[in-house]
């Protein structure tokens, strides 16, 4: 674009310089610093000098192992039963200083499954971090499609020619300008087990048939509750992006469609949706990246609990690196998160390039 202008090295660097220095110093440098720290044993305050420890932090976070055990049998060879379940030897005897199983040292049970006569245990060096990874992926995999879909629905709804439609658009967008911290506190009230608005609402609609639940205090509902709230807060943002995509579609296409007698679904399928392809790609990428950063909601509402059911990668990074002052462990988590986000955006880019 600017090839027609003469070379102006000095002015160019002078004008771009401040921004370049700030981004280099406060983003690129700490980012590489994090990679470096993740190979050391640095702590925030430590009497010992920092040492290079190679991949030890990564091994401690990601180390997995399996062990298959046979149930205990009595002298006659019959399986010993305890509370109606076959009894297995204690895992601790393998994972604590057992010279025959050095690779299992320091691991804990993550989950187990029965296979034939025996049972296979999946062991992790850091069970909490494994749960954090799984929870984060569940969050992303639910939030990305649901939020994008609902946002599209709202955008189509708001793209009608109706009196006062701008007012509704403004209202749907409102939660976006409210801080997620404020939103999280308000929704703690909605989800409360005793005087929560949600329980009262469900109780009233079902005439008391649905029992009151402590939504955030229950391991099976806490993550779902946070997912619903996060979608509520951010869906207006993506509605507006869809809306701007909708408005780039030429009205003549719709006119042609209606002359041909296209049904509403056909209009959407063959005119609206193809016109939104670029927007769809952008929205999916943006939501995915935002969703991987899940932190504030957790920090305000659950602190990762109950029973680690809402642990997330970023919450773990902050809790370790800042809360427990384990800088190197926190940095290693940051690097793992970055690798995940980078691979996913590369995969998304590849998938979307494939189809065009």
């Amino acid at each position, binding site marked *: 674009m600017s090839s027609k202008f003469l070379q102006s090295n000095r002015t160019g660097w002078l004008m771009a310089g401040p921004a370049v220095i700030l981004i280099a110093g406060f983003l690129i440098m700490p980012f590489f610093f994090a990679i470096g720290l993740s190979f050391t044993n640095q702590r925030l305050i430590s009497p010992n000098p920092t040492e290079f420890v190679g991949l030890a932090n990564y091994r401690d976070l990601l180390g997995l192992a399996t062990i298959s055990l046979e149930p205990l049998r009595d002298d006659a060879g019959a399986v010993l039963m305890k509370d109606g379940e076959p009894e297995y030897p204690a895992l601790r005897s393998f994972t604590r200083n057992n010279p025959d199983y050095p690779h299992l040292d320091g691991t804990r049970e993550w989950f187990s499954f029965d296979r034939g006569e025996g049972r296979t245990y999946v062991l992790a060096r850091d069970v909490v971090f494994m749960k954090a990874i799984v929870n984060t992926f569940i969050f992303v995999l639910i939030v990305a499609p649901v939020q994008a879909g609902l946002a599209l629905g709202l955008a189509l709804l708001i793209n009608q020619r109706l009196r006062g439609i701008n007012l509704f658009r403004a209202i749907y967008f409102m939660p976006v300008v*409210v801080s997620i911290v404020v939103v999280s506190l308000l929704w703690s009230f909605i989800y409360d087990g005793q005087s929560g608005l949600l329980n009262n609402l469900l109780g009233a609609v079902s005439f008391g048939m649905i029992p009151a639940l402590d939504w955030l205090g229950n391991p099976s509902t806490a993550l779902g509750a946070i997912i619903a709230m996060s979608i509520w807060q951010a869906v207006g943002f993506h509605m507006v992006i869809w809306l701007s995509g909708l408005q780039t579609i030429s009205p003549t296409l719709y006119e042609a469609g209606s002359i041909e007698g296209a049904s509403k679904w056909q209009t959407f399928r063959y005119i609206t949706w193809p016109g939104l392809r670029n927007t769809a790609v952008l929205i999916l990428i943006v939501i995915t990246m935002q969703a991987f950063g899940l932190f*504030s909601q957790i920090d305000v509402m659950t602190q990762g609990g109950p029973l680690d059911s809402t642990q997330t990668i970023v919450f773990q990074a902050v809790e370790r690196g800042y809360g427990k002052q384990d800088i190197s462990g926190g940095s290693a988590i940051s690097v793992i998160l970055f690798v995940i986000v980078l691979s996913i955006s590369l995969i998304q880019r590849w998938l979307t390039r494939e189809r065009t």
Partner: protein
Amino acid sequence: MAAISADNHGLRLWTRYAVLVLIAIIFVFPLVFMVMSSLKPDQQLLSDTASLRAFLPVGDISFHNYTAAFERAPVGLFVMNSVIVTGITVLFSLLICSAAAFAFVFLNWKGRDLVLTLILATLIVPFETYAIPLLLIASKLPWIGFDGLTWGWLNSYRVQIIPFIADGLTIFLFVQYFKDLPGELIEAARVEGASWYQVYAKIVMPLAGPVLATAAILKFLVMYNQYLWPLMVVQEEGYRPVMVGLQYFFQLNVAWGEVMAYLSLITLPVLAFYLYLQKAFIASIASTGVKG
């Protein structure tokens, strides 16, 4: 747009509005609950959640929670801190990012394309992944101020401002906008002997109104709602912004009425600002979605 033409059959119109209103209720009820609760004493606040009274200004209504909130925490100080940090960051961000974008779009200099690519690549690095090393760096940086040379930026305004002035998204927005400006205008000014700085200040910036609004609004939202970073770098009360100030309301006995009053205090001005500038807000989000 044209296909979805206005439809005036009474019943269908009525159902359309009913759907719109129902969805609107889903989006506003927590905020209405917040404001109404801030006007009620704690006991009534909790008992009202059992009925629709939670959303109505009924019963023992007063501004007592607001005065109590001011007594419990230095609310004015927190608001002032947030305004200072947000205001200065937005101003510098507009200046520095627009200058950089100007250099990327209109000037020809060595390393330009590489630097721009690098800056755009930073868009996929989540802040959370480098917050902790950034904290380490910030805690050791030097500063020359009124009290001479000091080391460490923790507990200050600058630690909340300087790292957030330049960012890839703001530069990207300016670059996109500048690309669409007529190049002849700039060439003509150069032919007449204007320096690049004059072109930037006298020609390009006066035309940049819409993108300035967009960048300012997005930066404002990010900065005013900052939470994780000030939580880590500001332990001293004197520099705390509003979101971190919330902690004061959760020490010992939680007075929910005061919490709601504080939440209303820090949220309603932003909401009012938003509703007033609603079109610009929405246009600014929409422009981030225009693919370039």
